[in-house]
C-alpha cells in the first residue's frame, strides 16, 4: 500500500534572496570544487580522497587538474576516511568528500578514531546537506551533521552561506591546522558576499543590522533570514542578521552582543533541533545573557522526496516561518 502524506505545493525554484534583491549565485558545492582546484598549486600537500561521488561533491574538478593527487577508493566511506588519516599522518592535507550523510554517518567511527582523536589535519567536506537537496529524499539528506561533527573534541565545523564565502572558507579550512568539517549544499544560493570576501573561522559576520531582534542563521538559511528581515522591515521591525558560518568554535562574543543589544534571538538552520546551531547558541545565551529565543529548523523528523522549494516550505524553512518566529519572540 501507499502511505498517504500531506501534500505540498511544488514550486520549481526556492527563489531565496529574491525578495531582498539578491542575485542567485552558484551552489556552495560548486564553489568548493573550483576553489580547491585553484588552491592546488599553492598547497602541494593537498590531496583529495573520494568515495566515488567526486562528480557530485565537485572534488573531481581538483582531481582532474591534479590526477596523481586525487584518490577514489570506491564506495567505501570507512576506508576513505581511514586513508585520509594515514595521508595526514604522513604530512598531506587530505580533503575527503562525500554526501554529508554518508561521510558523517557511515564513517563516524573512522572520523572519531582516525581523524579527530589523533588531531589529524584532515578536511571533511559534506555536500548535499540539508533537505534542500530535494528529490533524492531523506536517505541522502544530512540533517544531523552539525550535531555529530561538533560533538567531537577538536573538530572545527563550518557552513558557508554562498559561493564567494565558500571560496574563502576553502582557503581558511586548508590553512587551519587540524580537523575541519565543512558543510556544502546542492542547490544554487543567492550571492551574499563580494568576490573578495574573507572567511575567518570562529568569527561570525553581521550581514544586516537591526535593533529589534537578531536572526542567527547558517548556510542556506542566511539568504532566507535576509528575506525575513526584508519582510519584517515592512512591518517596521528591524532585524539584525548574523551569518554564523562557524558552528564550532562558536563566536560567543557576537551572540552575547546580539542578546545584549537586540534582546531577542531567532536561530535558523537547515538541521534538526537536537544538537544544532540553535542548541549551541542557546547554551551561550542562557549562560551569559538570557533573552527570549525561537528556533527555525527541521525539528525532529526526516524529510522526504520533493522539489527543494516545496520541501523548504513543507518543513518550515522559509522567510515566512522566520518572520513568524521573529514576531513570536517579540511577543514574549
Amino acid at each position, binding site marked *: 500500500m501507499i502511505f498517504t502524506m500531506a501534500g505540498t505545493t511544488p514550486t520549481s525554484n526556492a527563489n531565496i534572496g529574491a525578495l531582498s534583491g539578491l542575485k542567485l549565485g552558484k551552489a556552495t558545492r560548486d564553489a568548493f570544487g573550483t576553489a580547491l582546484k585553484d588552491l592546488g598549486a599553492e598547497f602541494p600537500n593537498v590531496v583529495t580522497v573520494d568515495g566515488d561521488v567526486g562528480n557530485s561533491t565537485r572534488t573531481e574538478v581538483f582531481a582532474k587538474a591534479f590526477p596523481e593527487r586525487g584518490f577514489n577508493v570506491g564506495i567505501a566511506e*570507512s576506508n576513505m576516511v581511514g586513508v585520509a*588519516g594515514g595521508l595526514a599522518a604522513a604530512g598531506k592535507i587530505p580533503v575527503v568528500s562525500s554526501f554529508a550523510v554518508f561521510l558523517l554517518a557511515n564513517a563516524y567511527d573512522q572520523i572519531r578514531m582516525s581523524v579527530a582523536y589523533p588531531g589529524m589535519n584532515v578536511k571533511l567536506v559534506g555536500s548535499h546537506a540539508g533537505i534542500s537537496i530535494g528529490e533524492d529524499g531523506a536517505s541522502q539528506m544530512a540533517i544531523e551533521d552539525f550535531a555529530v561533527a561538533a560533538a567531537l573534541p577538536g573538530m572545527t565545523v563550518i557552513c558557508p552561506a554562498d559561493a564567494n564565502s565558500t571560496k574563502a572558507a576553502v582557503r581558511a579550512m586548508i590553512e587551519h591546522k587540524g580537523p575541519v568539517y565543512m558543510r556544502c549544499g546542492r542547490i544554487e544560493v543567492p550571492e551574499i558576499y563580494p568576490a573578495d570576501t574573507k572567511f575567518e573561522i570562529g568569527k561570525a559576520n553581521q550581514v544586516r543590522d537591526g535593533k529589534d531582534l537578531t536572526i542567527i542563521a547558517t548556510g542556506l538559511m542566511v539568504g532566507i533570514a535576509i528575506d525575513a528581515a526584508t519582510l519584517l522591515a515592512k512591518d517596521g521591525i528591524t532585524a539584525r542578521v548574523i551569518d554564523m558560518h562557524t558552528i564550532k568554535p562558536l563566536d560567543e562574543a557576537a551572540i552575547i552582543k546580539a542578546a545584549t543589544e537586540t534582546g531577542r534571538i531567532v536561530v535558523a538552520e537547515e538541521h534538526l533541533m537536537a544538537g544544532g546551531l540553535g542548541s549551541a547558541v542557546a547554551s551561550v545565551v542562557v549562560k551569559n545573557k538570557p533573552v527570549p529565543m525561537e528556533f527555525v529548523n527541521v525539528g525532529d523528523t526526516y524529510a522526504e522526496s520533493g522539489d527543494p522549494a516545496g520541501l523548504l516550505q513543507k518543513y518550515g524553512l522559509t522567510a515566512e516561518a522566520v518572520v513568524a518566529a521573529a514576531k513570536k519572540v517579540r511577543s514574549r
Partner: protein
Amino acid sequence: MTAATPAMTIDQLKDAAKAIRRLIIKITTEAGSGHPSSSLSAVEVVTALYFGGFMRHSKANPRDPKRDRFILSKGHAVPVLYSALCHAGYYTFEEIMTLRKLGSPFEGHPNMKRLDTMEASTGSLGQGLSLGLGQALACRLDGLDAHTYVMMGDGEMGEGQVWEAIAAAAKYKTGNLTAIVDQNGYQQTGSTHQVLDLTPFAPKFEAFGWHTQTINGNSQEEVVAALTAARKITDRPTAIISQTKKGFGILPVLETTGDLNYHGKPLSKELAEKALALLA
C-alpha cells in the same frame, strides 16, 4: 636521520623476543589489566621488525619522514609495542611500568598524540590498514622508499573496513605496504572458528590481488624469511598470514588456568612469576 637498524642474528632475535615477553608479563601484571595473551602471540613479528633490520627508525627523530612505519591495528596488544620500544632503548622499564595508570602516556591502546613512536591511535578494530594505506600512498607521492607495516588480528578481520582497504590497496598497487595478520585463533568470546570463521585468509587476499605468505608466526626463522621475501615484492601489497598461538611463550602457565584464550586479563602475581620463570 633515520638509519637502518643493525640486524640481529636469529639467536639474538630469540633472546630479544624472550626479553620482550618478560616485559609484557611484568607491565600488564603491574597494570592489573590489559591483554598479555594478545601481545604474546605477536612477539616474533614485532621483534623481527624492530631488531631484524626491517624497520628504519630513529630514537632521535621518531617522526622522520623517511622512517619505516609500523601500525598496530590490533591496538589492545600494545604492550608488545611498548615492550619492544623499551628493549630498543626508547623508554625505560620504569616508564613502561606506568602502563594504563592515570597520567601515563602508555595508555591501554596506542595514542599517537602522547607518544611520537605510535604511528596511529588505534583501539577501534578495523582501522589500521586504511591508515597504513594512506601512509603508503603519501610516501609514494613524496618519492620516499619507506615501507609501512600493519598488524591486524584475525578476529579483527571481521570488520568490513579491512576488506575495503584490501581492495583499495590492490587498486593502488602499494608495494610499500605489508599487512600482517596475527592469526592467533582466538577473539574475545572464543575461537575465531566459532565466532566468525574467515579462514583461509591467504586465498582471500590473493583474490584481491595481493601477494601472500602463510607462516608459523612464532618461528623467528620463518618470520625473518617472510619479511625478507615481502620486501622484494614491489608491484603489489603483500600479506603475511602469521599463524601464531595466543599466549605463546607461556602456554604451560595458561594451560593450568584452563583458558587458552585468556583474553583481556593480566596474569596474577603468582602466575606471572611462573611465566617469568618459563621465560628466564
